[in-house]
């Protein structure tokens, strides 16, 4: 399994995709901090946490684009032909590799958000964020990033089309969640988008507790990954 993970990690870091997501993530983190601090009243701890919140959907797209790209570029077949442990474990290793890379990207995003955001938040009224709050946002962003990357890999392996996958996820994440919120605002937290946002510190993800959001994320991640592995083992590879 270690060999498979190493092989998949080499794949994730040897194209410009990971670097592009890293640069985009850092830029989005800065823009998010600036928008939230400049255009919102931040007199509550939750509002301040929102300024530092990660963007797990970016990591979901990272995993999705990478996993679906395996079929677009036919690299899935080349890997399956040499992987000793079978396709299922290979996809598991791929999910692990994207989770690890996603963690690195999320860590860089969190570092940028904290470096830019904490000095700006210090000047805001109301209670200041303690080290515990900051740690919770950082750790939550990392957990949300890793699990979102795994969900992305699972969805990418299931749909096998980068365009269809990305468009579908964006529609669900923005339009779908808005529609769901109009019906039942609390229900958003039970979706992977809402749970990941809550984990990452964004209160817009719903009203669930941090632990409940983590549980919801796990409940979405595991079945999706199992479905992707079962499908991968049964399908023909081009």
């Amino acid at each position, binding site marked *: 399994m270690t060999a498979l993970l190493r*092989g*998949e990690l080499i*794949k994730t870091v040897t194209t410009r995709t990971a670097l592009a997501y890293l640069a985009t993530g850092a830029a989005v983190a800065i823009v998010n901090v600036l928008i939230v601090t400049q255009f919102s009243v931040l007199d509550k701890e939750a509002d301040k946490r929102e300024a530092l919140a990660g963007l797990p959907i970016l990591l979901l797209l990272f995993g999705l684009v990478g996993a679906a790209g395996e079929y677009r*570029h036919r690299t899935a077949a*080349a890997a399956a*032909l*040499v*992987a000793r442990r*079978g396709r299922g474990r290979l996809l598991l290793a791929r999910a692990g590799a994207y989770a690890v890379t996603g963690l690195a990207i999320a860590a860089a995003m969190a570092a940028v958000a904290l470096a830019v955001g904490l000095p700006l938040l210090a000047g805001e009224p109301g209670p200041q964020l303690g080290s515990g709050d900051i740690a919770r946002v950082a750790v939550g962003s990392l957990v949300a990033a890793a699990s979102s990357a795994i969900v992305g890999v699972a969805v990418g392996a299931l749909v096998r089309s980068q365009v269809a996958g990305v468009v579908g996820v964006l529609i669900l994440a923005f339009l779908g969640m808005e529609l769901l919120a109009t019906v039942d605002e609390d229900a958003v937290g039970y979706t992977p988008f809402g749970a990941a946002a809550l984990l990452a510190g964004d209160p817009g993800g719903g009203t669930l507790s941090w632990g409940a959001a983590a549980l919801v994320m796990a409940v979405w991640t595991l079945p999706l990954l199992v479905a992707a592995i079962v499908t991968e083992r049964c399908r023909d590879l*081009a």
Partner: protein
Amino acid sequence: MATVTVRPGSKTRFGLRADAREMNVADSVGMKATHISHVAAPIVVEGLTKRYGTVRAVDDLSFAVRAGAVTGFLGPNGAGKTTALKLIVGLAHPTAGRALVNGPVAGVAADADLLGVYIEPCGAHPGRSARNHLRSLAALAGLPRSRVDEVLALVGLEQAAGGRVGTYSAGMRQRLGLATALLGDPQILVLDEPLNGLDPQGIRWLRTFLREHAASGGTVLLSSHVLSEVAQTVDDVVVIHKGRLVHQGSIDELARLGGGVLVSTPTRERLAAAVRRAGGRVEYHGGGGRLLIEGLDPAQVGELAHDERVVLHELTPHGSSLEEVFFTLTDEDAA
């Protein structure tokens, strides 16, 4: 003789059901029938069928590939070669039948030391360098990193290994695909149209490499839709058309199919009668009163003439070209 020729529409199984463990394969050098065990054949295909909806891409295909030989897997475009190869190496799942590679059913788990595969395209991300592509595959296969540089040198890509695959020419991608297949230094090579896009030097290198691989006991199954392209390289041939087996045997046997012996003699009727008694077929050829004898080789005709005290003025092998035989086997009308 162990040649098996099957017209599309008929069924031949070579006795390759689970309870039939042996088959005949023609020896490519001596043209003698070699009895090899089912278990000993590195690649055994049994009743392999692949349907896509109502289309049968591969239809009840059975054959075996022996070690120590290069076997050509031939058929026109759309014959089902690539689909069959994907079934054999485990990339696709058969609708019926099975393919055995060195014993177990293909595709359960890969082993780069055992099976090296090249099926177009080369399976490399265009934004990744050839070296990194091979590094990742070497890691997945549990092979040492040093093997990457070895195969890059082997296929002549070491100078371009740092460049992105997306900038490669078709020939360079072909070489990268071959490097991937050779990464584990496998005993068995399955190559789909490996000569496509290669320059003359590349073709020559690959032919030599494959011959040496077979000479050292390795097994090679390579597909092509151009018989002349592989005729110099292969020992045995498996010809398919519309997903079905139409011929399996040695390349020499294939060349003899449809051929005959042209004979000129002052006592034609006497020789013709002797030939018919010996099981041959005779027809008058051209306006010179010569006989075209089929079903006997030149040596047999010469010996027969000697036994019958028939004087021969001419004894010439008269064979159809390999391409003609190939076209005959895969002729749409015949199918």
